[in-house]
């Protein structure tokens, strides 16, 4: 009896659902806003005595903001400062109009234990935890742990791998007695934690990362002779790989790390592209033009090389097969000066120096269309280098009468100078993703 009376109702319900499904009001959203996602990174609680050695929240917020995709809420605007999800009142964060919220805490090394960092990411509107991690801080490098957290947050919210916990290499020229000194420096991607890797009384040039980030190739002048070295970043051991008479320049590791493309010449006015096999030591000449062919850059598949050449009268980018070097094809047709290629990780675009109206700017060439899109305003922006996630480009620019490092997001929306200490900075190279960094989920809002 009861079943009987319920059955029609159930059927009715099914019909109603079906009807609703058909008659759903559909509203099409064809636009969104193009603005940084507002995020609040609440200062992390410091579980130790005194004050925290690193403002982790600030590192994370700065990283995210530098990407151009996030706007970090200033601490002064926060209505509360929870350090755990349990303490979060989402109304406070809706009130300040942020989409996402990061809270966390750092525990100092306990007896025999490492420093630990815990953080949680919440969506303010769904009130759901998106991330919850407890990270061991290697070597007490809390700053790098913060970059790692930023990467995780970035990846969670953008779908793209973050590249904050990466290192960059660049040359610093410090003016002192004589013509000063040169340093090859490796720092965090935000310019912090700068470490001098090579010091030289003479010119240092063209640092280039090996694909695994363990080695850096660079050019060092000794007695006015240029030499190409490959140096282990960790150990500092270096190896001279090329020391031909004349010019030895512009080294670039192949994607497999076994070869080095270089520009060589006995005549500075007629460099050519060569590929040196680092295993066999064999050198193969790829270009033979009576022009300056230099600044080789590998395509991610390692099958072709893009380089700068003035064979057409002005410096332009050309592309040729990495194996034979046959028949290079010009790929830049817009502007009188396009040089210093840095190929994006996906191989779809090339960052370059583009001269426009006498102003040197960082631009991105779309390899499929040939379109060149300027990212910076100049007037003297040089040496672009793609971040390993392709989201930003590192370059040098002039600021306050000095040469500094800067990053620009690939949409050109956010440009930010990096802290880099004194001296003229040049020729930055953004290193690869770190290898095998571990992070363990903390299992929720602990």
């Amino acid at each position, binding site marked *: 009896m009861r079943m009987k009376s319920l059955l029609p109702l159930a059927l009715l319900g099914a019909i109603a659902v079906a009807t*609703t499904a058909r008659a*759903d*009001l*559909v*509203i*099409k*959203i*064809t*636009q*969104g*806003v*193009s*603005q*940084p*996602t507002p995020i609040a990174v609440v200062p992390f609680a410091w579980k130790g005595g005194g004050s925290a050695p690193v403002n982790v929240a600030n590192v994370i917020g700065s990283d995210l903001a530098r990407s151009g*995709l996030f706007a970090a809420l200033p601490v002064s605007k926060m209505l509360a400062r929870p350090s755990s999800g349990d303490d979060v009142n989402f109304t406070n964060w809706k009130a300040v109009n942020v*989409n996402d919220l990061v809270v966390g805490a750092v525990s100092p090394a306990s007896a025999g234990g490492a420093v630990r960092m815990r953080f949680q990411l919440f*969506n303010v*509107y*769904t009130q759901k935890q*998106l991330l919850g991690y407890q990270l061991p801080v290697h070597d007490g490098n809390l700053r790098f742990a913060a970059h790692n957290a930023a990467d995780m947050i970035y*990846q*969670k*919210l*953008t*779908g*793209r791998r973050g590249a904050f916990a990466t290192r960059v290499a660049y040359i610093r020229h410090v003016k002192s007695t004589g013509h000063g000194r040169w340093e090859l420096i490796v720092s965090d991607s935000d310019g912090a934690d700068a470490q001098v890797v090579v010091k030289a009384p003479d010119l240092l040039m063209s640092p280039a990362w090996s694909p695994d980030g363990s080695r850096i190739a660079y050019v060092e002048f000794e007695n006015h002779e240029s030499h190409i070295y490959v140096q282990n970043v960790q150990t500092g051991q270096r190896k001279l790989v090329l020391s031909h008479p004349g010019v030895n320049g512009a080294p670039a590791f192949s994607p497999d790390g076994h070869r080095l493309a270089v520009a060589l010449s006995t005549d500075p006015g007629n460099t050519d592209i060569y590929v040196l096999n680092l295993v066999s030591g064999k050198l193969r000449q790829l270009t033979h033009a009576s022009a300056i062919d230099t600044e080789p850059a590998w395509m991610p598949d390692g099958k072709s090389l893009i380089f700068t050449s003035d064979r057409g009268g002005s410096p332009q980018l050309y592309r040729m097969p990495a194996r034979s070097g046959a028949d290079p094809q010009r790929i830049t047709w817009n502007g009188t000066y396009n040089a210093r290629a840095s190929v994006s990780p996906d191989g779809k675009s090339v960052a370059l120096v583009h001269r426009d109206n006498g102003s040197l700017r960082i631009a991105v060439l779309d390899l499929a269309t040939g379109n060149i899109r300027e990212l910076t305003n100049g007037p003297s922006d040089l040496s672009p280098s793609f971040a390993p996630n392709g989201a930003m480009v590192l370059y040098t620019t002039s600021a306050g009468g000095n040469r500094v490092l800067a990053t620009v997001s*690939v*949409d050109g929306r956010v440009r930010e100078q990096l802290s880099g200490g004194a001296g003229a900075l040049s020729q930055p190279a953004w290193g690869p993703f770190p290898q095998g960094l571990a992070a363990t989920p903390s299992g929720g809002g602990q």
Partner: protein
Amino acid sequence: MIGAALREGVHGARANAGPLTLAVLLHVVVGAVLVLSSGVNAANPQDMPGPGEQHQPIQAVVVKNSDYQAAQASIRKAHQARQQQVERLKHQAAQARKERERTQHELDELRKKKESAASEAAQQQKKVQSQKQQLNDLNAQAQQVAHKRQQVQDELKKLKQQAAEAEKQRAAEQAHLKKVRQQTEQAKKAAAQARKEQMQQQMATEQHQQLDKARGNWVAAIRQKVTRSWIRPPDAPSGLDCKVKITQSPDGHVEGAAMQACNGDQAVQQSIITAVYKASPLPTPDDPDVFSRVIVFEFAPDQS
């Protein structure tokens, strides 16, 4: 009395003698008569008295003695006989004349009769002719009349036909008229119905339009708020198409959101879910009838 006898004698003579005898006799008589008449002034046939008159001269002659008397008596007797003969002849002649006259008369009569007959016949003929003529005329008239009648009949027939035709036509027209009237009626009815329906429809349409307008305004307001709430990730693939189904409270608070189909990654989906929650409370419609608890948002930035 004598006349009667003469007449009788002639008759007898004629009856007793042959025709030749009669003819000779007649001549003799006639000669005698002529002789006598010279002396006696023979009576002019024209002056012959009628049957009642007496001839006097004969009585004036007188005869003497017995011989004489006897002669006389014989002469007298002969005379008397001749007299009688003459008388008889006279009588006979008179008779003949009379006969001739009678014959003539009869002839005349006959002629007259004939003439009369002829005349009569002519008259008859004429009459017949006339009658014939009349007949002809009559015939002609009759013919004419017949013709006329025919004509009239024809005319009549024609008129009848025309009348029939007219009747037919009238009937047809009537039928047509009826049909037209019916059609008109139907059309009127249909028009009225249509008008009614149109009015209903118009009312419905107006209601619809009002509802549509209200819905349109509402949808536009929601779309605007959601659009402003959605920060499109830069890595969102081109051709992004994501449907998120939300339920809202009557005051527009988003109570739940579920991604239905999406070709974007988790970050894109997160951005969309965030957008619909961030847009909460959604604008409410002016007309509660258009409100829908369930809304499907289709995020398709590359479609327009």
